């Protein structure tokens, strides 16, 4: 039996997996499902889950380098899943909560222009920095109102996906 806590699409779920004769009994927040699971390869699973019907789910589960979370594709629907304790606060751009907002490069590219200065007040959706990748200029915008606390990017510099560019206080 294995018990874990997962954050699924932002909500915490208690999941308990118990091996049965020919599959698994999986309890999610107390409700138990009979699951026949077959591994296809490192990231692909086939699940048959007994409910009213015996439904087939085609699963690809891969870690997301930018957010350090697991992306579970249920068919073509991507769902973000994090095991509790492992999740990192990477994808806060656009979040409206308290604390500093960190703006990360969402893809590798070149910083073409920085449009703000440290100490400058910014409004939600105001462009902060322009990153060129794959021949397109992409504006990264502020997720909420605030003040530029720190700029880690340099114009002309190449950055990797996930690189910290700007902090808004």
């Amino acid at each position, binding site marked *: 039996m294995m018990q874990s806590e997962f954050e699924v699409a932002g909500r915490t779920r208690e999941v308990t997996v118990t091996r049965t004769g020919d599959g698994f009994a999986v309890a999610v927040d107390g409700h138990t499902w009979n699951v026949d699971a077959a591994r296809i390869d490192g990231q692909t699973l086939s699940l048959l889950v007994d409910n009213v019907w015996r439904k087939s789910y085609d699963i690809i589960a891969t870690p997301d380098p930018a957010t350090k979370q697991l992306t579970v594709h249920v068919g073509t629907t991507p769902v973000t899943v994090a095991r509790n304790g492992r999740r990192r606060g990477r994808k806060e751009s656009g979040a409206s909560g308290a604390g500093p907002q960190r703006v990360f490069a*969402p893809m590798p590219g070149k910083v073409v222009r920085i449009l703000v200065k440290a100490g400058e007040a910014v409004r939600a959706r105001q462009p902060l920095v322009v990153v060129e990748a794959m021949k397109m200029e992409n504006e990264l915008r502020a997720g909420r109102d605030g003040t530029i606390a720190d700029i880690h990017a340099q114009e002309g510099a190449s950055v990797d996906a996930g690189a910290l560019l700007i902090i808004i206080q």
Partner: protein
Amino acid sequence: MKKILIANRGEIAVRVIRACREMDIAPVAVYSECDRTALHVRYADEAYPIGPSEPRESYLRIERIVDAALKAGADAVHPGYGFLAENSAFAAAVRDAGLIFIGPTPKAIETMGSKTAARAAAKRAGVPVVPGTEDPIASDAPDAKIAAVASSIGYPVLVKAVAGGGGKGMRTVTDRQELSSAVRAARSEAGAAFGDAAIYLERQLTRPRHIEVQLLGDAHGTVLPFVERECSIQRRHQKVVEETPSTAVSPALRQAMTSAAVAVARAVGYTNAGTIEFLLDQDGRFYFLEMNTRLQVEHPITEMVTGVDLVQWQIRIARGERLALDPAALVTPKGHSIECRVYAEDPDNHFLPSPGRIVALRTPGGPGIRDDSGAAAGLDVPIFYDPMISKLVAWAEDRPRAIARMRRALGEYRVAGIKTTVPFFIWLLAQAEFVDATFHTTYLDEVLQARHGRPFVEPTPEVEEIAAIAAAVQAVLSPAPVGPQNGASSAACRGQWKSHARAEALRGM
């Protein structure tokens, strides 16, 4: 013509290789450093390195490509689209090296490559153009002067690259305050994309449709038009879905637009494959927008409804053949076809590029589906190039069935390792505006803005629960077995697996 060098990469290079093979012509690839293992290199008969990954150091290097063609003993060069496809200096360099350029003459490319010169040519051919500046804006024009021009055209105004194409170096400006920054951004993007920062201004029509006419012209004076393509589904002026025929085009309008297209092409002595793009306003009037002097990304949908292989015809025209096609059949579509451009972009994160390793890939198949791809599992989508990994094309007897088929195919698509626009297409094809074909060129940008970045495919409670189950079960099942797939299946299929184990043991040989 025995050997053709393809001056391109990715899915279009693979597409041209396929045409060559079917014509018993040897295809030759070129590649940058990071494309060494790409499919176009592996599908070709020969492959020559042309430099580092940066396009300016490889796929845009005219002399290296011509050198490779000469070294390979090629008879001709196919430019694909993008990169040097609309570069008249390249076409001239190929010709000057004694090789055939599979495309129009350098002169025609040059004329139509300048969007302002092209507008002038259309006017001379008696075809209306969208109101705008006759000449490029001078690179040192003061902001005030540009603003005055914009005012005389009337807002909203479009800032466009003179050397433009594919929506690059284009900006919409709704009032004067945005003008200078838009001009600056457009110049910079145009310079990066085309090596030419010149821009001009054009009036933005109210909710027009983008309708275009594919043409083929041979060296014997024949120019034939094809049934129109509807390309109004655009994001930031880039086409994302195309279809043919257009629901907005009546037989009479088709007749008028195809005639206008032929008139423009004739005005510049056009040969080989090209496309005349029009805007169709809400009153049913159409305006010449620009000409693309090359094959287009959306060419497969025309192939699907007419049965004509456009790439093979490019080659046949280049070797001097006459257009032996029934003109009436080309404007009489059989069924309906739709293309979705599958990009390595994260639609739920402002469509930002998502390069990286494709860890798993399962592409759709079956009736009416064509996947023109340059991607494969285990390969990378490099940061350096256009992020399109595949053109997914559906055909059916009519538009509703083509939509149903495309939705089915999108549902079969599986990609892991990178994000793609597949979830976005699943959402888009279910929208009433798409199903009813009531869209226009700004529809998508408007609806995207109104959605405020909401995910395109939102998981249902059931799907969330299944995701939790999958994550938990995957952890229990780890690590991945290298031999048999899983316990139950293994026992069931015993017989072949003893042999398989032997195979595994031998792998080290």
